[in-house]
């Protein structure tokens, strides 16, 4: 088991944002995380990556406890993450943004630059490598989030709505990239609202509702689950 979450709970005052959530992710999987707004998806990501300490429960990565570690320590263990609200280093160029990621593996600026250029090439960002990150389109900024995180060569990559706001062509591109990232050996844990995308790419889907995990399983099974339909999908979701 690569990632193991055990009875994880987080409260904010009286509000229980994440309630008794337990699940595991195997190496090489693509796992989707869906649920209505406010279900606690991003909070769960924050708990796994160390931005929030859990109120109760435990997160283990490769058999070692990571809950309680700071995000930079979590990164050192091999977890990368993108943010729903993209956080580009706005006044740095795209290339330099990516280099901040690749420096994690190599302090030599020339080699870090080469690695960053490869990643930008891979994500189709090479054409805007000299543009300031704040001037990129939203699609490119989302890709840049992924590029930076890939620079640290994570074993597990958490993607928080990397496809929101993209047009269908861009979504299709991103799906291709994610599959390629998986083939290169990175396990993916993906929050996504675009159902077609998450259904297409996930091996397994977790459904969060009011902070609790209501079901998990293969996409087809989740799409037909009555609890999921009531809580989130609204009507029977048809997979083509």
């Amino acid at each position, binding site marked *: 088991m690569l990632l193991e979450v055990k009875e994880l709970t987080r409260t904010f005052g009286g509000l229980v944002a994440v309630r008794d959530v337990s699940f595991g992710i195997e190496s090489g999987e693509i796992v989707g995380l869906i649920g209505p707004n406010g279900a606690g998806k991003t909070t769960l990501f924050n708990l796994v990556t160390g931005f929030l300490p859990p109120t109760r429960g435990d997160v283990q990565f490769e058999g070692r406890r990571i809950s309680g570690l700071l*995000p930079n320590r979590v990164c050192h263990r091999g977890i990368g993450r993108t*943010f729903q609200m993209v956080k580009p280093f706005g006044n740095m160029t795209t290339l330099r943004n990516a280099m901040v990621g690749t420096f994690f593996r190599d302090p030599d600026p020339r080699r870090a630059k080469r690695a960053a250029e490869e990643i930008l090439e891979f994500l189709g960002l090479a054409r805007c490598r000299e543009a300031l990150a704040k001037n990129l389109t939203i699609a490119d900024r989302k890709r840049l989030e992924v590029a930076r*995180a890939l620079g*640290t060569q994570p074993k597990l990559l958490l993607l928080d709505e990397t496809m929101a706001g993209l047009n269908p062509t861009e979504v299709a591109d991103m799906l291709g990239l994610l599959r390629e990232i998986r083939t290169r050996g990175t396990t993916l844990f993906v929050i996504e609202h675009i159902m077609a995308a998450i259904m297409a790419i996930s091996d397994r889907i977790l459904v969060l509702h009011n902070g609790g995990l209501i079901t998990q399983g293969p996409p087809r099974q989740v799409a037909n689950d009555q609890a999921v339909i009531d809580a989130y999908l609204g009507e029977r979701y048809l997979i083509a």
Partner: protein
Amino acid sequence: MMREREAGERRAAVPAGYFVAFGIIGVLVLLPHVITTPYYLHLLILVLLYVALSSAWNLAGGFAGQLSLGHAGFFGIGAYASTLLFLNFGLSPWIGMVVGVLLAVVAGAAIGYPCFRLRGPFFALATLAFGEVLRVIAISWRDLTQGSNGLSIPFKPGFANMMWQGKEMFFYVVLVYALVAVGIVWKIERSRLGYYLIALKEDDSAARMLGIDTTRCKLYAMLISAALTAVGGVFYAQYVGFIEPYSVFDVNQSIQFALISIIGGLGTVFGPVLGAFIMIPLSEMLRAAFGGAARGFHLVLYGIILMAVVMLLPQGVSQELKDRYKRWSRARQSAISRRKGQADAT
């Protein structure tokens, strides 16, 4: 084709940059032989001193985004450490400099570590208090510092005493100091630490998620900055020959370091250099021209000019120059290609 041209440009760009750098250094080295008026040499020494001090400040304030208003504290620590050791134990200021730097580094860690979690104005206020506390200590600890009377350093010229007849040697020493300070910042900007500092200034949590220990990086920047600032304090004490709490621990010193960096360009290597070369002569000129007319008028004028620069060039002078140069070279490029196009057509 594209790649070839890029490579060519890179090959050409490196020596050009070095030529310019060596040219400027060469001119600076020869300057004391051209400028023989002590006043102008004095002005130049001040400019170079502030080039170094502001570069040091810029490392913490500009690159790491930790706007400190307490750097006068490090400056004063350097000045008092070397002066007290010299007066009480006859220790050479060169050795006093090492002690001053070490003390400033300790002080930098003591103020930085607990305060880095404070954001924006709160960090500035905490560091402001740090500088002021040191000033009050220097005033009240009379047995050690002679309080407000200050300390005079007896004039005994000699390399070991870091004092010389005339200003030429002071000029060369401060030139080396300025070159070292700018060189260190230049080196850091190109290193991993430089990238990390700008990244954490832009977004702390994104930087952390990329494995960056942002607190430690800020601390490194602060310590290097404090150490370089203390060196300036030692030089100042030896050059002026007299220090007092109101001059070396003055909050206006801290503000001056910050202003020069802001005017020149925060978080850039040459911003503080440009800033010092503009602001120090400007304030001296204004004082010379209007200082006698009405008390404080030169300061009013200085303030107005500062406001104008900040409003017109919020990115600082160095960024503005860079942008203009870029626009100019692009215009030239397109003019050349247009002419080429016409020539081909005919």
